[in-house]
């Protein structure tokens, strides 16, 4: 698709840009209004870092708010197409920096925004119906710049669908059997969310949707129906699960599958409503980006296709060890709950004491920590430093941890006989995670 030399009407990119910018602006405002900047970034005294990004830290409160302001303003500029490339780059950097500050808050949706916005820097989204194009608009862009967006969305959906093809999801209707009954208070739906058939129906429908929706969107005769399915599916997930803005982001993003005429109609309407006038839309030029862009996009998308497959390199049950779990579009895939109690031992005297996690972590951080091996090791190292600073010597740190996965009985998680201070987490297989034994 990327090698095609043909050109396409630029209007789909323009609507995508406008909606993307508005959605991101609304997301940041919502995040701010909910008090999450304070709660998730400023209140915790300790942050869990991503491998290789340990240098990213939460800035002083005023700067943190400044970072969110910058992110929100750049999103507005993107929507307007004002200094688009700069705005897009600033948005990508500020948004991604925020995500890197604490991996406790990792969500596939946020990762999607980062991946998408990095790619969008290199797409000619501002050549038509934008501030940047107010004097010189380009009506046509290389087809690959639209196709790149479609491919990225396809990657997200199809991998999300493939991830659902496991025995827990398909044969046991897990974790929906756990999640759905607790939504009993939802009007109308709530009444049958308790029933087994509903759990299976939602599991199978979700898998089929994720796997095939892109193909129905690509195929013109089914497109309108597929898009209505997109709306229903995402609105339903929005009602059932606390997933914030994501349903709207996907509903708007998938508009990219429609042909130019519909986008032109949207833009004409916008032009009329905003008083900009339709002349903005008149042009017959073709935008020709530098040829390197094509190669960059190809490599970028190939990486995106390969990255979710890295779990194949590790032994053990993926849901248990979570090696290769993140950055792979495994969305709403498992229910994991855990409990981890750390023991600080003085190796010389054998004396020990337990740690009250709430002294260092928020409830949310503790919850995330207790089920993810990399969090547990990172936290243990932090405890080691903390208690060494307090004057304790010859410290060893052990953890007694239990995790329940998809409704199974809780089982010991990390080897309780391993001194976690001797573990340096890396991309190597984690032999200190106890086997799952299905």
């Amino acid at each position, binding site marked *: 698709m990327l090698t095609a030399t043909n050109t396409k009407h630029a209007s789909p990119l323009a609507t995508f840009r406008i909606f993307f910018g508005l959605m991101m602006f609304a997301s940041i405002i919502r995040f701010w209004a909910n008090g999450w900047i304070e709660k998730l970034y400023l209140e915790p005294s300790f942050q869990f870092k991503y491998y290789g990004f340990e240098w990213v830290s939460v800035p002083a409160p005023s700067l943190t708010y400044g970072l969110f302001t910058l992110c929100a303003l750049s999103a507005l500029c993107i929507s307007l197409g004002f200094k688009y490339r700069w705005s897009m780059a600033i948005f990508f950097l500020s948004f991604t920096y925020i995500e890197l500050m604490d991996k406790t808050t990792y969500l596939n949706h946020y990762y999607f925004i980062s991946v998408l916005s990095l790619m969008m820097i290199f797409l000619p989204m501002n050549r038509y119906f934008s501030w940047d194009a107010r004097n010189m608009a380009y009506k046509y862009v290389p087809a690959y710049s639209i196709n790149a967006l479609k491919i990225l969305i396809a990657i997200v959906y199809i991998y999300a669908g493939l991830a659902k093809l496991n025995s827990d999801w398909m044969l046991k209707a897990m974790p929906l059997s756990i999640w759905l009954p607790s939504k009993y208070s939802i009007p109308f739906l709530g009444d049958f969310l*308790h029933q087994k058939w509903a759990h299976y129906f939602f599991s199978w429908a979700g898998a089929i949707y994720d796997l095939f929706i892109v193909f129905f969107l690509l195929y013109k005769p089914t497109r309108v129906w597929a898009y209505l399915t997109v709306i229903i599916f995402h609105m339903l997930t929005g009602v059932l699960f606390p*997933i914030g803005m994501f349903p709207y982001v996907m509903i708007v993003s998938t508009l990219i599958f429609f042909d130019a005429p519909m986008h032109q109609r949207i833009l004409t309407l916008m032009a009329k409503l905003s008083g900009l006038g339709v002349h903005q839309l008149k042009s017959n030029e073709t935008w020709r980006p530098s040829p390197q862009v094509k190669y960059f996009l190809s490599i970028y998308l190939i990486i995106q296709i390969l990255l979710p497959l890295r779990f194949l390199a590790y032994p053990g049950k993926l849901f248990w060890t979570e090696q290769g779990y993140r950055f792979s579009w495994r*969305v709403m895939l498992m229910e994991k709950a855990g409990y981890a109690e750390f023991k600080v031992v003085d190796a010389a005297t054998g004396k020990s004491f337990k740690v009250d996690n709430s002294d260092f972590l*928020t*409830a*949310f951080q503790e919850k995330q920590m207790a089920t993810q091996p990399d969090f547990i090791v990172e936290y243990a190292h932090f405890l080691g430093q903390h208690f060494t600073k307090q004057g304790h010597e010859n410290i060893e740190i052990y953890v007694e941890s239990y995790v329940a996965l998809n409704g199974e*009985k809780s089982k010991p998680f990390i080897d309780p006989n391993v001194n976690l201070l001797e573990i340096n987490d890396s991309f190597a297989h984690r032999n200190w995670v106890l086997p799952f034994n299905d």
Partner: protein
Amino acid sequence: MMLNRLLSLIFLITLFTGCEQSFIPETKDNFDRELMLENWVDLHIKPGYAQYLSALNELAIKNVDFKTAPSTSTLDALRNTYLQAYESWQMVALFEIGEAEKLGMRGYTNTYPTNIEKVKSNIEQQNINLALPSTRVAQGFPALDYMLFDKIKADELVEKLSANDCSAYLDLLISRLQKLATQVNDSWNVEERSSFVQNPESVDRMVNDFLFYYEKYLRAGKVGIPAGVFSGDPLPMNVEAPYSSKYSKNLLLTALNAAQAFFNADNSLADYLEFMDKGEIAIAINNHWEQAKRLLKDIDPSLKDQINENNLQLLEVYDELQKAVVLLKVDMLQALSIQVDYVDADGD
């Protein structure tokens, strides 16, 4: 053209959902959470507070008796009602929700170890405002425990407590407890009850509060901290009621029984687990509690003495209470799909 199609589809969907609604039979095989909430309020929370309040009123009466006729026998009567009120408190300490949560009742009623220096200076200063958070360490049952069980000769203590300054502070401590209990007791009126019972979030909140209490105040506060689990060395003076001393095991047992009764009550959490085909979790939790109670039989009535004599025995009790924490917080919460925290952040 497209708009037409869209409209017709929306029409179809409305029609479809409209039909479906009437097709679904009115079978209520959902677990009746509203009944669970009603039972909690009607059979545990409200009677618990009523009982606690009347125990406090009794305490206040015996305090007046002692004041009017100070003697070792009126002091003994006062001490007995103190103990009964403290036991009644253990039955409601787990319900820090609603008004009790707003008031921070547990903090003002039972923060221990009490700060002796602060109690002494409060007695001297008189007219202390006990609503200040900084005074939590010098009021409630722990302060009463220190005052009523001061280790001096009985007749000297009678004299000391009947003196104006001490007597005034006893009045203040008891009326403060009464005030808090009255406020919370009154808050569970008809409107509060119905808004609690009808709020779908109440189950999550109540269970979270219950687990928080069990883990922090029962497991850690009453056993783990004094047994040195979190400090390396035992802290015998951090037991509950260290001055009266011989009541501490009984207070722990009462609290554990209250927690267990709440869990096993009619249509409560154990039944809910059973309904979700996870009855074995409830059985396992009860097994650990029963084992803890069996072990407690061989434990000194004074946990302080037990720690000084044989702390390992108490640590065994702690282990059983701890094993229940894992089952409650991991297995039960997952089975009932109850969120473990209040952070309402997005998921994916």
